C-alpha cells in the first residue's frame, strides 16, 4: 500500500522513492534523451559556422513541413527565414552571435515549406572546442505566435499614439501659422490705420499772430481709424477758422466721412465764414452724400477768430452742432463752459438747429475744445466719476479749473497726463485743441 503523504515526512526527504512512485520516477529518468530532443516543446537546430544545417529536431520539421533530408546538409538557417528576417540576421543576429558567442530572444519569422509564416523567438549559442575554436551553432526556436500577436497589438497601439502625437503637432503648427498670419494682417491694418489717421489731421498747426495753439490726438485703438478731427486755418482779413468734431463710428467708412467733413468745412468757410452758414453747408453735404441705408453724422464746433484791432484780444464766434461745450479758462483763474445749448447733430436732419455763442479772449485767457472720448472715459471705482462710471463733464471742468490761468501748450500737456492716468479707460479716440492769448511782452504778467 502506498503511504499517503509520505513525502511530507522528514525521513522521506531526499531518499529514493519507493513502490509505484519509485517506478514512475524511474520511468521518467529513463525518458529517452533522443526523444526529448526530437519531440521537445521547442525547435532545435544545429548548424555549422557557415549556417549549414547539421541537425534538426522533429518538432521544428513538423512546424516547417520539411523532411529531414531536405534540410540537413542542403540548407542554411537563413534559408528558413523570410527575406526581411534574413537581412536582419545578416546585419544584427550573425554579427552579435559572432562577437558575443550567444544571442537570445530575437523575434524572427520562419517560412514553412508551404509558404506560411510562423513567428518564433530565437536563441543561439556557439559551441567551442577546448581551445576556444568555434565548432557549431546551437539554436532553439520557440513558438511565438501568441506573443507576436500581443506585441503586434502593442506596437500598433504605440504607432497609433505616435501618429496621434504627430497629428497634434501638425494641428498645433497649423494653428501657430494661422496665428502668425492673423498677427501679420493685424499689423498691416494697424499701419494702414495709422497712415490714414495721419492724413485726416493737420500735420502741424500754424498759430495766428498773437495766439498760442496746441493740439493732441489720442488714439484709443491702433486697429481702427478714429472719427475725430480738428483744424485751424487762416481766412480773409486776418481772421481764422477753426473746428473740432467727431464722426459717429470708426473704421474706413467713418474715415471717409471725416475726410469729407474736413474739406467741406474749409471750403464752406472760404465761401461764407459765418459759423452757422458753415455748419449748415456741412449738414447739406452730409445729408446729401449719406442718405438712405448708411446715414453718417457728426458733432462739431466751428469757430471764427477775429483779432480785436487796437487790443491784444480776439473775438471768438462759435457755432455748435450737438457737440460738448468748449471750456473757457480766464486769466483771473475762473473756468466755465461756453454753453451752446440745443445744437443738433450735423448730417441727420435737413435743417438742424445750430447753437451759437460769442466770447472775447483777452491776454491770459485759454479756450479748450475737446471730443467726448475724454469725458466718456471709464474710470476706476476709486477715481472721480460722473456717477455713471464715466469721467464726465463736471470732472473735466474741475480738472481744467485747477489749471487756470494757463496757456494752450500747458493745458494740452496737463490733459495728455490726464489721458495717461485714465489709461485703457479711454476706449474712444479723443481730440483736443486749445488756444490762448499770451500776455504782451511789455506788460508784466498778472
Amino acid at each position, binding site marked *: 500500500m502506498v503511504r499517503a503523504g509520505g513525502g511530507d515526512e522528514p525521513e522521506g526527504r531526499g531518499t529514493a522513492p519507493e513502490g509505484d512512485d519509485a517506478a514512475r520516477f524511474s520511468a521518467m529518468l529513463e525518458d529517452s534523451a533522443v526523444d526529448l530532443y526530437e519531440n521537445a516543446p521547442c525547435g532545435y537546430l544545429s548548424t555549422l*559556422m*557557415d*549556417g549549414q544545417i547539421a541537425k534538426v529536431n522533429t518538432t521544428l520539421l513538423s512546424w516547417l513541413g520539411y523532411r529531414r533530408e531536405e534540410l540537413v546538409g542542403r540548407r542554411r538557417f*537563413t534559408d528558413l527565414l*523570410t*527575406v*526581411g*528576417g*534574413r*537581412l*536582419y540576421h*545578416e*546585419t*544584427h543576429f*550573425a*554579427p*552579435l552571435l*559572432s*562577437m*558575443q558567442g550567444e*544571442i*537570445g*530572444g*530575437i*523575434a*524572427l*519569422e520562419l517560412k514553412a515549406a508551404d509558404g506560411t509564416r510562423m*513567428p518564433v523567438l530565437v536563441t543561439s549559442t556557439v559551441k567551442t572546442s577546448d581551445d576556444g575554436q568555434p565548432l557549431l551553432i546551437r539554436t532553439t526556436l520557440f513558438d511565438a505566435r501568441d506573443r*507576436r500577436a500581443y*506585441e*503586434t497589438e*502593442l*506596437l500598433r497601439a504605440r504607432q497609433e499614439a505616435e501618429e496621434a502625437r504627430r497629428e497634434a503637432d501638425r494641428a498645433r503648427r497649423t494653428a501657430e501659422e494661422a496665428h502668425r498670419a492673423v498677427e501679420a494682417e493685424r499689423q498691416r491694418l494697424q499701419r494702414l490705420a495709422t497712415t490714414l489717421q495721419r492724413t485726416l489731421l493737420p500735420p502741424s498747426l500754424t498759430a495766428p499772430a498773437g495766439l498760442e495753439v496746441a493740439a493732441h490726438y489720442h488714439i484709443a485703438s491702433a486697429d481702427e481709424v478714429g472719427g475725430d478731427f480738428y483744424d485751424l486755418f487762416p481766412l480773409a482779413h486776418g481772421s481764422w477758422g477753426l473746428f473740432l468734431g467727431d464722426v459717429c463710428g470708426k473704421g474706413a467708412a467713418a474715415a471717409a466721412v471725416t475726410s469729407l467733413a474736413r474739406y467741406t468745412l474749409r471750403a464752406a468757410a472760404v465761401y461764407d465764414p459765418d459759423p452757422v452758414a458753415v455748419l449748415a453747408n456741412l449738414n447739406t453735404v452730409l445729408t446729401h452724400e449719406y442718405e438712405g441705408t448708411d446715414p453718417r453724422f457728426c458733432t462739431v464746433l466751428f469757430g471764427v477768430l477775429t483779432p480785436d484791432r487796437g487790443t491784444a484780444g480776439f473775438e471768438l464766434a462759435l457755432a455748435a452742432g450737438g457737440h460738448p461745450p468748449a471750456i473757457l479758462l480766464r486769466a483771473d483763474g475762473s473756468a466755465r463752459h461756453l454753453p451752446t445749448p440745443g445744437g443738433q447733430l450735423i448730417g441727420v436732419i435737413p435743417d438742424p438747429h445750430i447753437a451759437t455763442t460769442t466770447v472775447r479772449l483777452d491776454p491770459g485767457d485759454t479756450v479748450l475744445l475737446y471730443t467726448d472720448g475724454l469725458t466718456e472715459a471709464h474710470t476706476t471705482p476709486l477715481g472721480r466719476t460722473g456717477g455713471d462710471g464715466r469721467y464726465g463733464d463736471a470732472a473735466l471742468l474741475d480738472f481744467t479749473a485747477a489749471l487756470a490761468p494757463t496757456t494752450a501748450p500747458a493745458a494740452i500737456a496737463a490733459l495728455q497726463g490726464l489721458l495717461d492716468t485714465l489709461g485703457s479707460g479711454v476706449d474712444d479716440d479723443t481730440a483736443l485743441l486749445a488756444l490762448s492769448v499770451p500776455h504782451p511782452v511789455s506788460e508784466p504778467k498778472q
Partner: protein
Amino acid sequence: MKRNHVVVTGRGDGPVVVLAHGFGCDQNMWRLVVPALAEDFKVVLFDHVGAGRSDLGAWSEERYASLDGYADDVLQLLRALDPGPVVFVGHSVSSMVGVLAAVREPDLFTGLVLLTPSPRYVDDEATGYRGGFSAEDIDELLESLDSNYLGWSGAMAPVIMGNPERPELGEELTNSFCRTDPAIARAFAHTTFRSDNRADLAKVGVPTLVAQCSDDAIAPPEVGAFVHARIPGSKLVTLPATGHCPQLSAPDATAEAIIDFVRALR
C-alpha cells in the same frame, strides 16, 4: 571626434587606414581584424552618428536621410584628424559612403576598400539590374526591426537611462555592441536599403579594392562584379567567407586582403 567616437590605434608612423562599419552594429565589428592591421598601420575607428557610442544628440532624421550626410561626416572627420591621405575601408553600406566621400574629395584618399559593397539593394526592372531584393523585402526588414524593438527597449533601457550605481549593466548587457535607438535604426535601414549609388561608381578616381564574400545573401557575387566593372581600374577579390560580415567570419583573410592592398599602394 566625440560625435563619431573616434578611436585611433596601431603604428603611429604607418599608413592610415580608416575602418567604417555598416548598418547594424558599430566599430566593434572590426575587432577581429584590428590586431593584424595595427601591426603596420595607423588604424582609425569610428561609429556613425546614431550607432554605438556616437553622440545620439547629433543625429537628425533630415541629415542622415541620405548617405551624403554620412559622407559629410567622414570628410569632416578626416579634415579634423588631418592624418594625410588615407585608405578608407567601408563595410556594407559604408562602402558607398566611402565612394561618395572619395568622389567629392579625392585628395583625402589614397585608396578605397569596398567590403561586401552594393550600390543598390533593390532590383531595378527598368535597367535589368539585380540587387537581390524587392521593395517588399525591405519592408519586411523594417518589420523585423520593429518587432525586435520591444525586446531591445527593455534591454536597452538601463543604458539609455544611465545607471551609474550599476555599471555592470553597461558592460555586460546583451547586444550592447549593437545598441541603437529603434527610430534611428529604422531611419538608417531606410537610408541604406533605399539608396542607389550606381551612377557614382564611375566617378571614383582613387585605387579601389572590391572585396566580396563567396556566399553573401545581402551583396551577392554579381553585385560585387557590377561594382568592380563600374569603378575604373578597380581590383576584385572574393573572400572565402559566408555571410555579409567577412571581418567576423573570415577575419584573417579579410585583414590579409586589406594589408595586401595597402602595401601595393606604396
